[in-house]
């Protein structure tokens, strides 16, 4: 599903986020990308979704080499992913349901079906009763679950989450993890970047530990 070889990312100014990363992630896998802060977890996640471009090496997603991708094809590549951003990027000028409707509007889902699917996605993360609430009125954990609902509403093949539990208490974090596991169980490839060591060692998952810009385990 995703394979990278010799991937490096050097930012202007000389900061090397990734030195030489090679890895394979198969379809249906659940992978934790771990490491200290600054180890390059976020960068790797952004490279997968072609939000940033590597300065060395190559990344192939679904058989498509990202380096050879035309700019016009980029939006269609991104539709393979459900993205959960570190800063969530919820829109506060609309309610929870309308936030979840955005990815469906982008692909032109007819309104009735879109509403039905958005409600189903909210239901899956346990937010259906908060559909009309503005995200600003939701708790941290609820906001994170809303972001997940928006990421999965288009039934993406790959769920890509960057520090989804960073600011949550242990109970909320466990709830979020359960949601990701549920998607994994129905065949979605799940990739989670996290610095939280308690998540490693989960059954049926793999850990990709980054240290000094390389895979160390």
């Amino acid at each position, binding site marked *: 599903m995703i394979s990278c070889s010799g991937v490096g990312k050097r930012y202007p100014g000389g900061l090397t986020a990734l030195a030489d990363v090679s890895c394979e992630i198969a379809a249906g896998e659940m992978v934790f990308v771990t490491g200290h802060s600054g180890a390059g977890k976020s960068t790797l996640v952004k490279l997968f979704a072609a939000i940033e471009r590597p300065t060395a090496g190559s990344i192939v997603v679904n058989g498509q080499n990202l380096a050879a991708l035309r700019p016009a094809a980029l939006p269609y590549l991104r*539709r393979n992913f459900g993205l959960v951003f570190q800063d969530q990027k919820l*829109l506060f000028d609309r309610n929870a349901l309308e936030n979840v409707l*955005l990815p469906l509007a982008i*692909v*032109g889902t007819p309104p009735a079906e879109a509403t039905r699917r958005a409600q189903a996605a909210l239901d899956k993360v346990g937010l259906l009763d908060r559909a009309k609430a503005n995200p600003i009125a939701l708790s941290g954990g609820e906001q994170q679950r809303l972001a997940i609902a928006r990421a999965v509403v288009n039934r993406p093949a790959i769920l890509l989450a960057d520090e989804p539990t960073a600011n949550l208490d242990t109970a909320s974090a466990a709830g979020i993890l359960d949601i990701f596991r549920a998607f994994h169980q129905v065949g979605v490839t799940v990739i989670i970047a996290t610095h939280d060591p308690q998540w490693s060692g989960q059954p049926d998952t793999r850990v990709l530990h980054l240290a000094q810009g390389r895979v160390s385990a």
Partner: protein
Amino acid sequence: MKAWLTLHANALRDALRRLAATPLNTVLALFVIGIALTLPAAGWLLVENVQQAARSAASTQQISLFMALNADKAALADIESRLNQAAPGRWRFVPRDEALQRLQGNSGMAEIVASLPRNPLPEAFVVEPAETAPAALEALAKTFAGWPKVAHVQLDSAWAKRFDALLRIGRLAVLLLGAVFAAALVAVTFNTIRLQILAQGAEIELARLIGATDAWIRRPFTYFGALQGGLGGLLAAGLVTLGAHLLAAPVNELAALYGGSFILSGLGARAVAFITGAGALLGWLGAQISVAIHLRRLN
């Protein structure tokens, strides 16, 4: 196909919602655009009406052919046959005696005519050509002047030419005015869209990250620009129609005072459609430029 329709319907609904969300802004923008389009539209209507009036006045355009005093019957017959070819049925002969009699009929001229030892007037032909365009009249007069025994050809087209030149200037002025205000409309739309893009920076950034094409991002803005421009054009057409309606009675009165009748014509359906369409097109253009520039900056 269904997805495509949904995408466009969504964009249109989005644009309408944005128009409705800020009613005061929308009304003000529509007024700016409407008034900007009203001036050239009204100018165009004025030129059209003046041309209409001129055309009805110019319908009795005449060319007079004065024969040489020594022209004999054979020469006259020759001209008659030539006129039958050049302007069949549209000419008449004015014998010199008849002309003198008519002159005598004019008050104050009788004594002068009586004091003349002999008739000084030449035989003449009066032609009313079918084609009254100044250039055609000019060409015809030149042809007549070349015929034998024709002493003088008089074409009273000087005023028509001047008038035509004046109309051309008027039309050009309307065109320039239209261009200036078209640029203003594009600029107004450009700025409106710029503000919208700034206000929706977060949504645009997110939409891009989750797979929106540039066309998808651009669409609601271009619909908005076209809608705003089209509605502004419609408002302009309404204002011009209202103005023409208010002016119709006084203009009729004025025409009656000059012993004529003239009906001020308003904007036809085609003109209204044209103004609305032009407004929509210019709004669309302003939005396109704005989106292209500002989206590149957001990249």
